[in-house]
């Protein structure tokens, strides 16, 4: 199909000019920005706290645009001709990788705090140093309604879901629509190969899995008793548990597909210095600790060393992170496949 052709072309166009501008950006690093300067950050979580934290610490103001991952990415893409954001901080690494490929990110800059990164996260930093991970969380864990299912009956692994006993009782979000669902499914596809992934999800659907547009609807289906088992984003799962809902969270032994939150700077930003300050700030262990303690999406594995996760978070949580390049490359194909399932 004609899916990748236009953008591929655009990306070569764009990267041709990127070298010149990135050196320019680097040159301005030394100039000390005036206090009170503002930058605009597009993000999908932590909107309630991050602005204050940053301002308190640095004196710079954050303009925050919040939305779900898909909306933020649509905005970014639509603004391509005249970007309005300075920093993008979002938990869809493959998409940010894609942005970098099309030459929209500032490359080749290394924040001071990068030294604090855990190894697993350091491995996620791309070679061109266009974005930095600030943490990761499970894009999907297993959650079941304890009113309906006993612990013994509960699924233990991803493979369990194909069992007949869960027929018509499983709910999940639609990767074609819900942003966090893609990192979730992409790991299966990377792990099992394209065919294997299709087999697996095909079987689940045959087993009557209900596909809701987004995670909140899945959660509602679970609390309403419409489904008994759900594959839910980690934060969502813990939110339900903390709200007192009678659910149990299961981290399968083979690990949960992880979603990495990364921060990237817009290539042509006029506020490069503050933007860099902000990204560096995000990598600060203290800051990450504060996010875990105060943030709204506090269930994640921090990227910096020496930060404690939420107490009630599974200590042995294992995250499997799909390769960003691979995931980005196959994104269209996999989402297309899911969308097409809608007619089966």
């Amino acid at each position: 199909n004609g899916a990748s052709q236009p953008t591929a072309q655009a990306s070569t166009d764009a990267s041709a000019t990127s070298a010149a501008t990135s050196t320019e950006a680097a040159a301005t690093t030394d100039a000390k920005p005036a206090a009170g300067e503002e930058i605009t950050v597009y993000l999908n979580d932590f909107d309630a706290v991050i602005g204050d934290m940053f301002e308190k610490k640095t004196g710079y103001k954050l303009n925050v645009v919040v939305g779900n991952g898909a909306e933020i990415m649509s905005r970014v893409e639509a603004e391509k001709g005249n970007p309005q954001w300075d920093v993008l901080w979002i938990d869809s690494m493959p998409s940010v990788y894609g942005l970098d490929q099309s030459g929209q990110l500032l490359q080749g800059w290394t924040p001071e705090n990068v030294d604090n990164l855990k190894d697993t996260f350091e491995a996620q930093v791309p070679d061109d140093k266009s974005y930095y991970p600030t943490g990761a969380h499970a894009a999907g864990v297993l959650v079941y309604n304890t009113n309906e299912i006993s612990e013994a009956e509960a699924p233990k692994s991803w493979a369990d879901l194909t069992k007949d006993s869960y027929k018509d009782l499983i709910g999940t979000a639609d990767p074609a629509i819900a942003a966090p669902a893609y990192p979730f499914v992409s790991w299966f596809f990377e792990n099992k190969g394209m065919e294997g992934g299709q087999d697996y999800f095909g079987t689940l659907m045959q087993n009557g899995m209900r596909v809701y547009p987004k995670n909140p609807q899945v959660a509602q289906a679970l609390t309403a008793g419409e489904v008994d088992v759900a594959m839910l984003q980690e934060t969502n799962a813990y939110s339900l548990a903390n709200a007192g809902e009678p659910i149990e969270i299961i981290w399968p032994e083979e690990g949960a597909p992880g979603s990495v939150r990364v921060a990237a700077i817009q290539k042509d930003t006029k506020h490069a210095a503050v933007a860099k300050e902000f990204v560096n700030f995000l990598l600060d262990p203290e800051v990450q600790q504060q996010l875990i303690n105060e943030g709204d999406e506090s269930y994640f594995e921090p990227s910096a060393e020496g930060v404690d996760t939420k107490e009630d978070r599974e200590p042995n949580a294992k995250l499997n992170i799909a390769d960003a390049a691979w995931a980005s490359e196959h994104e269209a194909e996999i989402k297309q496949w899911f969308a097409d399932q809608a007619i089966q």
Partner: protein
Amino acid sequence: MVRRSGDSINGNMLRLNANKLGWIVTIVLAVLVLFPLAAVIVQVLLPGIFFGSLNFGDIGLLLELFERPLWRKSLENSLILGFGTAVLGTLLGTVLAMARMQWKFPGARSLDAAVWVLFIMPSFILAQGWIMFSTGNGLAASIFGWHWVTAAVFQPAGLIVIMTLSKFPLAYLSVKAAMEWKVEMLSDAARLCGAGPFKVWRTVQAPLLLPAILSGMALVFMDTIGDFGLPSAVAAVYRFPTLPYSIYSAIYTSPIRFDMAGVLSLYLVALIAVAMLLQFWVLRRSRYDVLSGRAVPSVPKPAGRRMTWVLAVGNVVLLLAVIGIPIGSSIVTSLLKIQTNGLTASNLTLQNYASLLSEGSSLLPGLGRSLLIAGSAAVIGLIVGLGASFVLSYSRFRFKRGIETASLISFAVPGVVLGIGYIFVWNQPWLESLGIRLYGKPGILVLAAIAGAIPVITRVMTGAMAKVPESLLDAAQMQGGSLISRIRHILAPLVRGALISAGLAAFGACVFDLAVNSILFPPNFETLPVAIDDAFEDLRFGYASAATVAGGGIVVCIIMILERLLRRKEASA
């Protein structure tokens, strides 16, 4: 931009004629709707046009609708759903509006309120209620023991019924607005020819309202095929992709496929054009302009004891279904401590409402912003819509059909697509030098809200204007009345009810319009729907429901109060 066109109305006041008005309306619609949409659609041909590169896209994409199974299925589903809902919803809305205008019965006002509630509530909220009511262990089964409900609701026909119960307000408003005046003589003539009351209704009263009925139908149809929230949520069980689903899945992919969204939107526009042609074809051979010096404002009459009972009971049953189920469940949700534990005395709390007022809550400022935006959009939209409907109803303007189609686009095309178009159009660097780069400023939300309001306004108004014969305006023109004066003193008072309904509808719909808001809102400018959606995304269902219920309640109260204040005195007598 809107201000500019406003200026030209004032500046040319003395010289304004129907043709100039036609051009003004065309330009305004172009700016508000056509350019943004075209900007998305042009992605098919010139994908890089807004990013400083000129490449040529694959025109073959246009034909893929007939090749890609998903797209084909979406189109098919959208048509089935749209058509079924349009027919049933229009029928229900029309019958209710006529009964409401004809007879006095207890609870008539709550019917109006219910209609407003349904009209302004985002469809995903309504969906939640229906799902909660009808799932396997939902309220229908657990409380009433109606186990058949599950099977009945979760299938395409059930979806059509739910859509009908959610979308009929559009037809209701349109028809009710057109019934403000009546010419009793026409019915009398039919009765003297031997027709009984029902026959008179079927052969004279209803057909004379055909333009309003068709307007309502067009709105229901458009709103249905453009709706994503309700079908996608209700259809989770059996997968029922519609065009908006395909559009979303094209946009929420990386790399983002604006071109695909453009193609699909183009098909939505084509559907609108076909619907408009159909309406034109149906209305072509008849006339409906009945207002004369014999027209009197409609006043509901006492129905007689038996009829009153039937109406009152019917009304209650209807309200229970259309409001009780979807909104009731939101209310329940907003009152629960723990969702899973359901409706038990110990599980009840008012905490969610309390937290609405708490300091950190973004609800009140969001509501304030939303009301402001919706208010300005309603007022400006009303002016634009009045102009557009005037041109559609009375002028021989060349691009009338184009205006008609354009005036509906923003209803059917998903807000996200339009929002993206707005970004394309209003985020161009050269606009900055002119000082009108509106993207990133609250003004753009007003523009988008106006665009969103125009379909309802124009449809409701053209439906009502169809009754006003040109000769009444001609007479004013003969007295030396300028176009503005004719509209202000003759036309507007005669379609006053429609103006009020249209304005309030525009207002109400803007307050909760999420799709456009979510992609266009400026930094640090969170509006009510964005705030509510945020809470939903964070799974704070109780809080989100409380915000919806409270926000919706406030808006409906505002609407009801305005409606009562503005309504003609005689009509409420």
